[in-house]
């Protein structure tokens, strides 16, 4: 080390050692750091947990069951909320209950004129014997899976290509 460097080292030590430095406590910074951890990490986790719990509570309230398997069944939601599912193009199973048809569907009522009874065997859905009134346009689950035959011979049923009833030959 040259003379200048020695002088530099000595003078630098003299000036820097003369500084009076107070060591402030580090704990407020650590508490800030802990707050960063709480608000940056724990709070998103808490929000996620709370949201999941809310979804679970709502699902069990709507379906009436705490079994998560039931929550995935769309039928469970409709049974408890009274909301009919969208009509399925495929025929329903014979044992399934037909969904309730809302009364405010005049177009549906016009498909089955009053007094016309669908042919084919099976039990009728409506219990009244002389029902000339409102009839459900949807096929009974106990009849054949094909849609109800058209009341008039010429127009085929709009939903499928089912053949007209043999007893309707006019």
């Amino acid at each position, binding site marked *: 080390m040259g003379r*200048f460097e020695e002088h*530099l080292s000595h003078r*630098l030590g003299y000036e820097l050692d003369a*500084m009076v430095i107070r*060591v402030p406590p*580090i704990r407020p910074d650590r508490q800030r750091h802990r707050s960063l951890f709480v608000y940056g990490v724990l709070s998103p986790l808490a929000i996620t947990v709370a949201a999941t719990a809310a979804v679970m509570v709502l699902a069990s309230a709507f379906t009436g069951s705490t079994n998560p398997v039931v929550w995935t069944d769309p039928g469970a939601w409709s049974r408890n909320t009274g909301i009919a599912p969208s009509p399925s193009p495929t025929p329903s199973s014979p044992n399934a209950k037909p969904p309730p048809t809302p009364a405010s569907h005049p177009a549906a009522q016009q498909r089955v004129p009053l007094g016309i009874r669908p042919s084919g065997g099976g039990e009728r859905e409506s219990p009244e014997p002389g029902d000339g009134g409102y009839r459900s346009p949807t096929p009974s689950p106990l009849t054949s899976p094909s849609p109800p035959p058209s009341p008039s011979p010429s127009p085929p049923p709009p939903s499928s290509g089912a053949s007209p009833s043999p007893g309707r030959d006019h």
Partner: protein
Amino acid sequence: MGGVGALATISIQEPEHAGLNSYTPGSLADFDRLYRVSFPRVVRTLSSIVGSQAAAEDCAQEAFTRALRSWTRWHGEVPVEAWLHRIAVNTAISYRRREKIRALPSLLFRLGAPRTDLDPADWADSRSLVAELRRLPPKQSAAIVLRYYHGYTNREIAAAVGVSERTVGQRIADALAILRKRIELGEP
């Protein structure tokens, strides 16, 4: 200085602090101890880089906050105080950059006027060496302080700040040339 293992307790022999020579990465108690021991030294280093002791203490606080966040990532590959100095010097460099930008409008306003922003005490007949170091580029003044005050070798400084040994040597040589001109020859 000795280092044993990467994740085990690192035994670091600090020349001025015999007995306080083992730090466990991630241990808050050890970091507390490191803070009490090293804070004054870091402030003295930063006083040669930033404009005042108050600014140096602020930068040192910020540096220790950053060091606490990455305390688990120090594995003893460099001495712990050198690792601290790296964080502190980077903090001081950022501070000086911000100060320069902040002072730009006033600098333009008083263009041509004599400089009055320095402490008058620094302009005494025996001009303060620290004041001269503050006028140097921050990386040069940091290298001078680490070399001639803390006693680190060029290799240790290079490992601490993450540059090559040759770069450290060049910075020190450039800084010495400027200081020699200003101190010995009285040139501005």
